[in-house]
């Protein structure tokens, strides 16, 4: 008798779903690390793992919330600044029994209110806490919303290529269809409306109903920041085609140029006014894992729904309630993120100093990496305008592609494995994010410590230029 659960009788959707970020390269890197090789993990946006220090203020507050007996001690004011004590008491009072009690399935009401207030300050338009759900990280929120939308494989979701593979993996897992729209690398990974229309038309001609469109702004892995004009175009497009817009805005704090500051999809929508602002359905996602906070391990995030009817919100609430509640410490981190220390607060100066330090360093590292890649043979790299990644294009010579085929590997996987073995740099091959046929990339983060950057880029350049030397046809391409 065959086993009760083996590959043959496994849910097909599970088989189909792929998630490269923790896939082949990462597993090989982990193996090598176990064998004693020094690995530089640049495969995941995981700042604290690469030495970035947590901000002091939230850690003080959460420690007091973890161990409320500290608050009872008369000398606590000597150890913790007064504003952290006040904040800890504030958040504990919002819970239904401290960090250890299930909260409302949508998140602690007081914290959802703070999120709404943050959104209003940021955008200039009021936000309804009832339409804000806190989640164990933004990813869970994305999965919940896609699960509400996807009914069958005839439901298509527009996803940018390249994209963060949570989207492709979740769509596969839920049995839906991914409808790709290509970002234009030569136009700084810009969105092309013509291509968008073509993708939708093609999907419809295959009998699919296109239900939603995902935008990642700032982009992952591409880093581009959308302009207001871009966002307007996207919103109009979704309105005309009756799509829900899913705005993944988790990198909104990570902006490294001044021409295009972050502007939320919701603000642009509200600015447009008229029927579209009252009818276009939008879900916006945010997290404590990125920005200058980088608190990935807390699993804190939220989604905000715009123009979704109360009955539909009820159903989404119902599904959330099966998992009872998002984790309470993560919710508190989120509360602290949306209402950080203000001028005049005791912790304000330190907080600003620490935050600025992180952001300015990220900006410098984004530049170092882009320049570093562009100095390498057969490598072209757009500037990282935002987010946490660099996505250089690697122009692999035909001989390298052949060698990859012989080794049974996708060409960019082949390149990245060789890079890993030679230098210990662990990246994610571009095929994990999607790319145009015959064009190869890799994704790395800009997170290694600033002082390590020159050595890392030098190590990469040496490997790359040697690789290109090895595989380039010395007769030159034109002869092929």
């Amino acid at each position, binding site marked *: 008798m065959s086993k009760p659960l083996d590959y043959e009788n496994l849910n097909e959707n599970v088989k189909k779903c792929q998630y490269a970020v923790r896939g082949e390269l990462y597993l090989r890197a982990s193996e090598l690390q176990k064998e004693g090789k020094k690995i530089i993990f640049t495969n995941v946006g*995981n700042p604290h793992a690469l030495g970035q220090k947590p901000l002091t203020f939230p850690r003080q507050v959460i420690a007091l919330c973890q161990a409320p007996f500290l608050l009872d001690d008369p000398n606590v004011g000597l*150890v913790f600044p007064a504003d952290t004590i006040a904040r800890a008491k504030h958040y504990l009072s919002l819970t239904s029994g*401290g960090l*250890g009690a299930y909260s409302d399935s949508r998140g602690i009401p007081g914290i959802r209110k703070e999120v709404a207030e943050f959104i209003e300050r940021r955008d200039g338009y009021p936000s309804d806490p009832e339409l804000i759900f806190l989640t164990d990280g933004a*990813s869970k929120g994305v999965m919940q919303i896609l699960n509400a939308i996807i009914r069958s494989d005839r439901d298509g979701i527009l996803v940018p290529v390249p994209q963060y593979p949570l989207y492709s993996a979740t769509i596969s897992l839920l049995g839906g269809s991914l409808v790709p729209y290509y970002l234009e690398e030569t136009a700084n990974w810009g969105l092309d409306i013509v291509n968008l229309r073509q993708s939708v038309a093609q999907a419809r001609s295959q009998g699919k109903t296109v239900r939603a469109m995902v935008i990642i702004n700032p982009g992952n892995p591409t880093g581009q920041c959308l302009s207001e004009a871009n966002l307007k175009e996207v919103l109009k497009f979704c309105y005309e085609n009756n799509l829900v817009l899913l705005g993944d805005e988790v990198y909104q704090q990570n902006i490294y140029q001044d021409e295009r500051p972050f502007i939320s999809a919701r603000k642009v929508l509200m600015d447009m006014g008229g029927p579209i602002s009252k*009818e276009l359905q939008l879900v916006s996602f945010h997290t404590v894992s990125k920005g200058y906070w980088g608190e990935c*391990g807390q699993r804190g995030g939220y989604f905000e729904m715009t123009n979704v009817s109360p009955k539909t919100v*009820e159903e989404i609430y119902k*599904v959330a309630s099966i998992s009872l509640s998002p984790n309470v*410490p993560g919710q508190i981190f989120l509360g602290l993120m949306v209402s950080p220390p203000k001028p005049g607060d005791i912790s304000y100066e330190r907080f600003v100093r620490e935050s600025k330090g992180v952001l300015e360093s990220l900006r410098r590292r984004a530049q170092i990496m882009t320049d570093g890649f562009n100095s390498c043979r057969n490598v072209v790299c757009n500037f990282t305008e935002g987010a946490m990644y660099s996505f250089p294009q690697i122009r692999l010579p035909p001989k390298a592609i052949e060698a990859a085929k012989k080794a049974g590997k996708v060409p960019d996987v082949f390149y990245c494995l060789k890079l890993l073995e030679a230098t210990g740099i662990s990246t994610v091959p571009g095929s994990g994010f999607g790319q145009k046929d015959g064009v190869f990339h890799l994704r790395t983060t800009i997170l290694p410590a600033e002082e390590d950057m020159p050595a890392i880029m030098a190590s990469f350049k040496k490997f790359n230029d040697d690789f290109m030397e090895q595989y380039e046809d010395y007769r030159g391409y034109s002869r092929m």
Partner: protein
Amino acid sequence: MRRFVAHSARRRNNFTTCVLRHCTLPLRLWSSTSTSKPCYFSGSVASGGSASAPPLTLDTINPKVLKCEYAVLGETFILAQRLQQELKENPGSHPFNELLYCNIGNPHSLGQQPITFFREVLALCDHPVLLDRAETRGYFSADAVERALQILNQIPERATGAYSHTQGIKGLRDTIASGIEARDGYPADPNDIFLIDGASPAVHIIIQLLLRSEEDGILCPIPQYPLYSGSIALHGGSLVPYYLDEETEWGLEISELKNQLETEKSKGITVRALVVINPGNPTGQVLAESNQREIVDFCKNEGLVLIADEVYQENVYVPDKKFHSFKKVSQSMKYGMEDIPLVSLQSISKGYYGECGRRGGYMEVTGFCSEIREQIYKVASLDTCSNISGQILASLVMNPPKVGDDSYESFSSEKEAILSSLARRAKTLEDALNSLEGVTCNRAEGAMYLFPRIELPKKAIEAAKAVNTAPDAFYARCLLNATGIVVIPGCGFGQVPGQWHFRCTILPQEDKIPIVVSRLTEFHKAFMDEFRN
């Protein structure tokens, strides 16, 4: 406000779908809040959004979302929230001045205190700066400091804010594996352990792997914890019920399992797995070892995955029963580990620690081939990893202070106090329920609940029908309105058709128990006086 649903139990052998019924509020109240028109999608382009309905409405939402239910936070709870609000705005508006929540296993929300040692370690891990200075270290017990240092050294860069390995921090899994070994007397492999955000996400992962279509079924106990029915509906499979026997203290009969299995097979359903909740929820029974061996044999012979929900393993209140993990039981039998595909679930939400709000726990996955383990890993990796604080707590729960440790005595007395209090409250409430007219209640051998059966008089059943509500939901609502006591009607968990139950937790603090008992007793007498035949 949420739409209310009340389950109505179907005929035996037909518990695959639930009948949804609206609450007593007039339907027009709901339709007036609707902003969407019915919408029929074809592949054609809608020009201008205003001419057609929005893309995400009740008509176009994933139908599995509509189908799934979760009674624990359903109708009665929503009514309770409303009453709570009314009391706040208008004290004295009800015949009680506080609500008594007996609906959910959420100990800290009712005043249970966290275990000091655990919180000390967590605070130090969250803010390691405290460890660097002698004055701040002095606030914490020496072994908490030591444990925090040990844990931080197992985390790269001491970074509790970083994503960890998808299965959880290796050092913590090692600790948990040792804890499992100490518990069972058999080895455990850290690579079999997946730390997750509570037991619930683990259930979703396994169920997703198992269910290919509606023709795949999972055997679930009736009554069951509605995570299982909810998850099966959400992932498009079939729930195959097996009835626990109330007459024999909620006994699990293999003959019942066999009957249900055969019936489903004849309907073309492939039964993939068996869920066993031990200690039971809502029923509280602790399985006898001999029973567990029969279950393991049954799974082996029928080719089923065994899903062992063991989150209440530290909640056993009776001297004649003891918790045995299914892993231990199967290892003690003639089988090798690879013979029995088993998923064992543990959580930090229950026991004596009750840390629900953390979302922490693990599943131990044994007896599966490496390809399946890779698939489990892959699905788990979509979420990158579980929260670190919860991971740390799981390792503390599975490896608490030992004899000789600085904190051992205070830890022991905290633990003992909580567990013995739970046992006392279980007994007091059980006795109180059994003294009520027409109510019988099995003892709570473990877990956190009592699940009494009420013989509702015909008049009450008719009154319930008249307001379009299941009889036990009607009773629960009357109880709530009269006394402020919040329980969950048995239909939310499943029961033999024509029988009525409700689930009541044993969690209100001990000083509140007399009030619960007196209000309940008074209400029940009045209810029976009103509706007696």
